[in-house]
C-alpha cells in the first residue's frame, strides 16, 4: 500500500534526513576536504573550580573526525529509531552536538576555545530573555497577551538603576525593580481586563510609553545629574561553597550574581506551580476556557489581574539584571529589544516554561558562539556573524517547532454572557 506520512512523521523524517546529511557533510568537509591544519585547544577552567582537565588539546582534523564520527553514529541510530517509530529526540540531539563540536573544532584550528566560558556567556545573554519569557508565560497562560515585556524590562531597569544610585545600595535597586515591572503590569491589567482594550495594541503602546518616558527622564535627569542619579553599584558574584567548585557546571550555575539565582528559583517554581498546584490549574483554566472556569466559581478576571501583576514582578527582576545585576549605570534603551526576543522565545517554546528557557538559551548560545568565533578570528563578514542568532532561531522554528498552539483564550477579554 502507498506509504503516506502524517505531518508529525514528515517533520520527524525531515529531521532525520537533515541531521544525517549534515553529519556526513561535516565529516567530509571539516574532516577531509578542508581539514584544520593545527591543534585546537578546549579550555574547561574558568575561575578557581577544581581542575579535572584544564585544557584538552587535539589536532583539529582528528577532533573533527571524532565528533563527526559520533554524529554519524547518532544519525544512524536516529534512522533506526525513526524506522521503529521510536523517539528520535535523543539521537538527533547527540548528532547535533557532534556536528556543532566538529564545526567549532574545525573553526578554532590553532586557536583556543574556552568551553566553560562559552556556555556561561550563553547563559548570561539568556538571563533577561528568560525573565521576560517567564513574564509573558504567566500572562498568556492566564489569557492575557503580553507584548509589553520590553516595556517591563526597560522600566524596571531604569527604576532599579536610579534607586540603587540614590541609595548606593544594590539591594534597594533589586527591590524597586519588580515594583516598576508591576506598575507596567498594572496598566496592562487595568486596560486589558477592566476596560477590555485590545491587548496587542496595549502591549505595543506600553512599550512606546516606557521608551518615551525613560528616554525623556534620561535626558532630563540621568545625564545632567549623572553622579547622583546614574551610578548604580552592581551585585558581586556569590560563589556557592563546594558547588561552585564543580568543573564546568560550577562556574556556569553556582558562581553567579544573586539575580541569576533568583532566575533559577523562578523558573523552577513556575514549572512546578503551573502544573502541580491549585493556582496553576486555575491559571491554565482561565487561559483555555474562561467561561468554564467561571461556571465552577473561579473569578476569572480577578485571577487574571493577579497573574499579570505577578508577571510584572518577574520581568522586574529581569530588568534589575541590566543595572544592578550586571551593567550598573542605566543606558538609554539598554534592553535593546530583548523583550521581543523573549516574546519570540515564549512562542518558540510553545508557552511552556522549559520550552521557553531552552529557546532563550539557544538564542544566547548562538549569539555567544558567534562573538567567540569572531574573537578567535573567522573570516566571515562581521555583519553575517551578527545575524547568526536570528537565523538560528528561524531555522529552529521552521525546522523543528512548526505550528504552535497558544492558550485558547489568549488575548480574549472575558465578559460574562458576551462570550459565545
Amino acid at each position, binding site marked *: 500500500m502507498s506509504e503516506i506520512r502524517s505531518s508529525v512523521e514528515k517533520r520527524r523524517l525531515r529531521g532525520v534526513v537533515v541531521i544525517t546529511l549534515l553529519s556526513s557533510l561535516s565529516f567530509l568537509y571539516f574532516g577531509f576536504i578542508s581539514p584544520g591544519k593545527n591543534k585546537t585547544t578546549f579550555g574547561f577552567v574558568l575561575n578557581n573550580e577544581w581542575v579535572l582537565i584544564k585544557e584538552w588539546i587535539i589536532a583539529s582534523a582528528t577532533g573533527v573526525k571524532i565528533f563527526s564520527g559520533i554524529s554519524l553514529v547518532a544519525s544512524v541510530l536516529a534512522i533506526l529509531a525513526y524506522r521503529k517509530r521510536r523517539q528520535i529526540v535523543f539521537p538527533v540531539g547527540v548528532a547535533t552536538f557532534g556536528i556543532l563540536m566538529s564545526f567549532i573544532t574545525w573553526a578554532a584550528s590553532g586557536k583556543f576555545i574556552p568551553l566553560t566560558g562559552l556556555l556561561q556567556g550563553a547563559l548570561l545573554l539568556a538571563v533577561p530573555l528568560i525573565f521576560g519569557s517567564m513574564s509573558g508565560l504567566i500572562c498568556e497562560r492566564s489569557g492575557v497577551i503580553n507584548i509589553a515585556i520590553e516595556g517591563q524590562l526597560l522600566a524596571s531597569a531604569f527604576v532599579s538603576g536610579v534607586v540603587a544610585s540614590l541609595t548606593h545600595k544594590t539591594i534597594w535597586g533589586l527591590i524597586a525593580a519588580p515594583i516598576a515591572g508591576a506598575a507596567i503590569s498594572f496598566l496592562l491589567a487595568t486596560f486589558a481586563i477592566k476596560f477590555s482594550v485590545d491587548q496587542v495594541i496595549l502591549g505595543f503602546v506600553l512599550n512606546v510609553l516606557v521608551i518615551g518616558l525613560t528616554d525623556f527622564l534620561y535626558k532630563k535627569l540621568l545625564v545632567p545629574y549623572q553622579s547622583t542619579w546614574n551610578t548604580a553599584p552592581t551585585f558581586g558574584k556569590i560563589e556557592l561553597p563546594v558547588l561552585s567548585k564543580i568543573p564546568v557546571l560550577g562556574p556556569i550555575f553556582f558562581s553567579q550574581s544573586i539575580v541569576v539565582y533568583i532566575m533559577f528559583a523562578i523558573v523552577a517554581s513556575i514549572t512546578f506551580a503551573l502544573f502541580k498546584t*491549585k493556582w496553576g490549574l486555575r491559571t491554565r483554566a482561565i487561559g483555555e*476556557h474562561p467561561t468554564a472556569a467561571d461556571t465552577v466559581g473561579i473569578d476569572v478576571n480577578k485571577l487574571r489581574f493577579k497573574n499579570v501583576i505577578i508577571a510584572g514582578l518577574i520581568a522586574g527582576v529581569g530588568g534589575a539584571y541590566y543595572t544592578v545585576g550586571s551593567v550598573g549605570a542605566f543606558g538609554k534603551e539598554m534592553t535593546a529589544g530583548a523583550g521581543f526576543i523573549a516574546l519570540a522565545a515564549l512562542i518558540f517554546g510553545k508557552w511552556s516554561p522549559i520550552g521557553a528557557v531552552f529557546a532563550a538559551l539557544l538564542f544566547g548560545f548562538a549569539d555567544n558562539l558567534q562573538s567567540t568565533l569572531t574573537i578567535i578570528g573567522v573570516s566571515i563578514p562581521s555583519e553575517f556573524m551578527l545575524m547568526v542568532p536570528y537565523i538560528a532561531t528561524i531555522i529552529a522554528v521552521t525546522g523543528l517547532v512548526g505550528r504552535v498552539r497558544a492558550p485558547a483564550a489568549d488575548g480574549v477579554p472575558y465578559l460574562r454572557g458576551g462570550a459565545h
Partner: protein
Amino acid sequence: MSLELRGITKTFGSFIANDEINLRVETGQIHAILGENGAGKSTLMNIVYGLLKADSGELLVDEKIINISEPSDALSAGIGMVHQHFMLIPVFTVAENIVLGHEKTGKFGALDIETARSAIREVSKDFGFEVDPDAIVETLPVGIQQKVEIIRALIYEAKVLILDEPTAVLTPQETDELLKTMRELKAKGTSIIFITHKLREVREVADQITIIRRGKVVGAVSPQTSEGELASLMVGRTVDLAPEKIKHKVGEPILVAKDLTVRDALGNAVVKKVNFHVNEGEVLAVAGVQGNGQSELARALINLEDHVEGSILLGGNELRGKSIYASLHAGIAFIPESRELDGLVGSFSIAENLILDLHDQAPYTKGITLSAGVVLAEAEKKVKEFDIRSQSVSDAVSTLSGGNKQKVVIARELSRPVKVLVASQPTRGLDVGSIEFVHERILAERDAGRGVILFSTELDEVMALADRIAVMYRGEILDIVDSKVTREELGLLMAGVASKKASA
C-alpha cells in the same frame, strides 16, 4: 429540593430574551422546557445558574428567596448545570476538570488529584459510566465529555440539576442511558430541569413540560400531550414531523470510495480502508456513535483531511489528493459538522457568507472585482428561497440563530451544480421547525436525482431519511443495511455488535 422562578425578565439591549417567566420545579421532578432556537431557554438557565443577571424577578429554593449573582452561589445552593456548549477545559484530564474550582491541596500546595480519581470511579460505578479519570477531555467523544459534566454535578451533590440540550450530541444508546440516569437521580430526590428539542425524549421522562416562545411561557402541559401539539405550541404553527419519502428508482453509483484510510497528525488510522458507494437519487446514511471516524471520513471526501489513502471516485474521476476547491467544484456539496467553526465566517454578512465558495466565479465577479450588486441580489433570492430569518442580508451571520445559520450554509452549498451532497450532523442543536426544513431540503436533493451522504448520530433522522445505512465503528464500516432495519438492530450495530443479517 424545589426551585421556583418568579417573573424573570432579561433583556439584551432592546431585545427581550426572557419576559416575565414563572416556573416551578418540585422536589424529585423532571421538568422539561421546550422552545425554538433563540426562544430564551439557555438565557433563563444561565440566570438560574448565576452566569447572567436577571433584570427583574426572583428565585426561590425551598420557598426561600435566594440571591444568585455568581455560579458559586448556585453551586453552594445545590444547583448544578450541564451546559449546552460544554464547560470543560479541552486540554485538561477528566480528573483535572472535576477538581477545578474545588481543589484540595497537599504539601507545598501540590494538587490532590487522587481523591477526585476515586470519586469519579465511584460515581461511574453507581451509574454504569465508563470514564477514565486521566483521559484528556478533547480526545474523548462528546458523549463521554457530557458524562464528565454530569459526574461533576453529581460529585458536588447537585440537588437541582439543569441539563441544557444534553441529548443534542448523543447517540440513541447514550440518550437512553442518560434518560435512565435521570430517572435514577429523580428516584434519589434530585430535581431536574431538562431542555431539549426532541419531543420523544420529553414524553418519555418528563413529569411536567413548560413551553417557551420568543422569551414568554406559552404553555405548561403534561407529557401525555402529543408530539404534534407540542411542536405546534413551540413553533406557533403546525409542523410536519415525519417527512414523507416518495419511493423512486435509484440511478447509477455516483460516488465510490475504495479502501479509504484517513490518518491523524500522529499517523494513526482513524478511518480504516472503508469501501462504500452512493447512487444517484438515494440517501446513504452513515450512522455511528460520535467519534468513530465519521467526522474524519466526511471531511476526507472533500480533501479536508491531510493524510488520506485510497480512492474517491466522483462520476469516475479520482478526487483524492486534489484540492478542496477542486472537490467542491467537481460537484460535492458539503455541510460541515460545526456551522460556527467550519461553515460560516461569523463576522461576515449573510450575503458574503453565501458566496464563500463562489466569490471568484461569474456572476459574482467581473475580472478580479466583486460585483456587489449581483452578490446582494443573489443573496436576497436565497434568503427568500431558504426562508432565512433576518433583518437584512447585510447582518453578520453571528447574530442569527443556529437554525438560520444552518440555512445559510445549506443555501450556499446547494448553489453550486451538485452531484453529491455530503451532510455532517446537519440538524445538530436545531429546533423542530428548522429540522423539518433541513430534512425537506435533503430529500428534495435526493428526489432530484443526486446522491446524498448523510452523516448522523440521530437515529430518528437516519431512519427517516436513509435509503441505505452504513454503520461505522472504530473507523471501520461494520455493515451496510437497508432502511428496513429496526432501531434495536441499528443500535446494536452502532455499539459494535456485527449484525447477522447479510448486508443489502
